[in-house]
């Protein structure tokens, strides 16, 4: 199977504004297939807003977003998900009363078809389909090492594990592009190390392209192929981690500029 060429995601001069506030200001970036791209920047730089624009929560005020070469600037979140873009949230958004397994199964919903009646009766093709989806979900459970909490209600899990379950749910949709909004926020060192390993493994094992927002610079430098830096809604740097780290504009944005 030959892979299509060209970038997976193209963001072209996109701006998002809330009233008078321009949260994202003419940002352009390209994400290549199988890449891990980190989007970093100080608080309020517009990272999450950009992610929201890509996943269809916000519609850009100007500019163009293309996925696999096709324009999809004005799609709604479900349509975006159907295209193969999945995401996790900065504040965990799981169904707290549902088991981990059921939460992850919801990630398969888009892949399910069939009539409501057959589903309800759990009969014939519906049953077969359910079993296939379950088998796929079990692979993810195994992959993310959450076998022990399969039946636990998501709301009872510690935060670090909830984040992992959220990742599992996103993976269940078999996304081509995975958007992770601060996957390691609020985690301790050990949990972060685990999460890094999972992200790298997902990228390697499933060939998933990953864009992530992260504040921990150690993590960013370790796992990403490329780093995009935003500041006040503008892109100020874009390149390999080592280059970006030396970039004067980035240093200024993070450390402040001396007003001499």
């Amino acid at each position, binding site marked *: 199977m030959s892979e299509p060429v060209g970038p997976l995601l193209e963001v072209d001069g996109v701006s998002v504004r809330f009233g008078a506030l321009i949260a994202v200001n003419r940002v352009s970036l390209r994400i290549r297939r199988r890449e891990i791209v980190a989007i970093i920047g100080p608080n309020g730089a517009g990272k999450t807003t950009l992610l929201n624009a890509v996943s269809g929560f916000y519609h850009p005020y100007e500019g163009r977003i293309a996925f696999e070469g096709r324009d999809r600037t004005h799609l709604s979140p479900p349509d975006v998900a159907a295209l193969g873009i999945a995401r996790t949230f900065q504040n965990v958004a799981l169904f707290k009363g549902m088991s981990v397994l059921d939460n992850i199964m919801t990630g398969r919903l888009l892949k399910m078809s069939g009539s409501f009646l057959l589903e309800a009766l759990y009969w014939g093709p519906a049953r077969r389909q359910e079993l296939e989806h379950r088998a796929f979900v*079990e692979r993810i459970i*195994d992959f993310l090492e959450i076998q022990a909490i399969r039946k636990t209600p998501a709301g009872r899990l510690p935060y670090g594990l909830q984040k992992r379950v959220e990742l599992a749910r996103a993976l269940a949709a078999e996304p081509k592009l995975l958007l992770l909004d601060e996957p390691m926020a609020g985690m301790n060192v050990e949990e972060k190390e685990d999460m890094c390993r999972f992200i790298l493994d997902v990228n390697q094992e499933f060939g998933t392209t990953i864009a992530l927002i992260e504040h921990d610079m150690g993590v960013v430098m370790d796992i990403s192929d490329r780093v995009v830096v935003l500041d006040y809604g503008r892109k100020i740097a874009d390149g390999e981690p080592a280059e970006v780290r030396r970039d004067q504009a980035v240093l200024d944005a993070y450390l402040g500029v001396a007003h001499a």
Partner: protein
Amino acid sequence: MKPVAESTSASALESERDTFPKLVRDNARRLADKVAIREKDLGIWQTYTWPQYFEQARHIALGLASLGFARGDRVAIVGDNRPQLYWAVMAAQALGGVPVPIYQDSIEREMEYIVEHSEARFAVVEDQEQVDKLLGVRTRSRHLQHLVYDDPRGLRGYREPGLSSLAELTELGTKFEASHPAHFDAELARGAADDIAIVCYTSGTTGAPKGAMLSHRNLIATARNAARFEGLREDEEVLSYLPMAWVGDHVFSYAQAIVTGFAINCPESAATVLADLREIAPTYFFGPPRIWESILTSVMLRVEDAAAPKRALVHFFLRLAQDIERKRLGRQSVPVWQRLLYPLGSLLVYGPLKDNLGFSRVRRAYTAGEAIGPEIFLFFRGLGINVKQLYGMTEASVFVTIQRDGDVRLDTVGTPITDVEIRISDAGEVLFRSPGVFQGYAKNPEATRQTLDGGWIHSGDAGFLDRDGHLVIIDRAKDVSRLADGTMFAPKFIENKLKFSPYVREAVCIGQARPCVAAFINIDLAAVGNWAERRNIAYTSYGDLAQKPEVYELIRGEVERVNASLAEDEILRGAQVKRFLILHKELDPDDEEITRTRKVRRGYIAQKYAALIDALYSGQDRVQVEAKVTYEDGRTGTMRADVVIRDVGAPVRVAR
């Protein structure tokens, strides 16, 4: 000394069935449809029959042969209990090689020692974590060449030479077989009973680990004797959840399973063991005391969360069951009303609880390795679970004594099994000999000489045989010492009593040539944490919780209870705990304070915490410590903490 049990011919083996691979081949013919091994994978129990077991192992063996595996080669085996790793053990043996299982949670340096000492040329491991460690070891190793892994996750990008997946290895094996069709059978036939079957590195409490070499004859004879002694059957189900590097797992999950033909079950992951236990409901179960303890703790925590009437009901019946069991074990009569109530308890509490825990089908369960708390022992026996104590050592292929059904006591470890002789030396040390007595320590004649004397093993344990021929273990012989005033002091004996408390996870007693006994305590984070939450005591970490005054009060109560029980012992009455402190960190095998099997390394602790010991005996009530800690990845750091010291009330004297 007890007369030798009449020798059955267990150690005489026919050449068709004198090694484990030959026995597996025999099982594959004899028990063609019977399940040999199960593994929970992707949420489903996958089964392999004996013919599949043999075939899988054969293919791994052929793959190893294609890499140039020669007779006598050692293979490091590292990972959780996985069918593939048990097959790898058999594969190595079939080619006349020797498997060397290593604890999967060992840090790189520990692994390096064993790999280098055993001169392992091959390693078969579970996953990336182990591969990473062994690749590190290999860069410095003169021996290690080939690494084989089972789970390819995260390893796709690795391009190191001599690294292959198990799938690739079996493919190589299939090709190799085409050009060498008779190789496997020929190598299998060359194996003999007195070949070394395995080298188990014992995590010594002193110094470097020693590699105990056990022959096929040692293991087959002992496994068979114990199976006959206990009436094990082909239809037993066992959960294989203890580390493969521990001789106990090797004997239960490999040797006995093969000799008897029963099925073993590999849990999905280390974290799912309790759930898997319930799904499998084994008939034959083995757990060191800490496993029994943690099951009990999890039950009690759940009971505390139940509604008040339920809680009262459960407590009532659990007390009843323990009371009855205590009387039974003490050969006292049980009042009629208690006997009448027991069936009701079975219906309402014991039955459902056993079912919930996965013990509804257990015919035999064992505890060994350390003394078990009487409350824990009575709890499980009271539920109607046939838990028994056994005494064993790596150097004896495990089994030395077992409590027979109907002859279970609280304070003994039972009577010698078939073909085992026990003697007590003049110094009070337990000596024994049996067909399971090992072939010596690898490359360590000095240690072998010290342990093995004229066929007798010097166990290093102080103990005695009681009137009925039951063995009683007091302590490690070298640890039994005297206080400054000459009072006998057996630290482990006191520590075990302390550890019987659900709130105490670990204890270290000091007292040799000191005026009195003092103790380091490690609290049980789960139990004390729960206790603290109930009392609205907020804490941030182990270290924080450990130093709370309320927790000190709690532990002081526990220490006083232990002193009261010590006061009842005529010999050890003088050695009660006068002062204690709760350590600011948990004793950890990574810090070399305890072994991987959780035995306290006394000498090392005495040296590392010398400042704390001085403080205990200098009347201070507070001391500052600095401790080196080792993180999981092998890095080290320093931790500073303030530790409080407490006195325990006046020594309890027994009224006579």
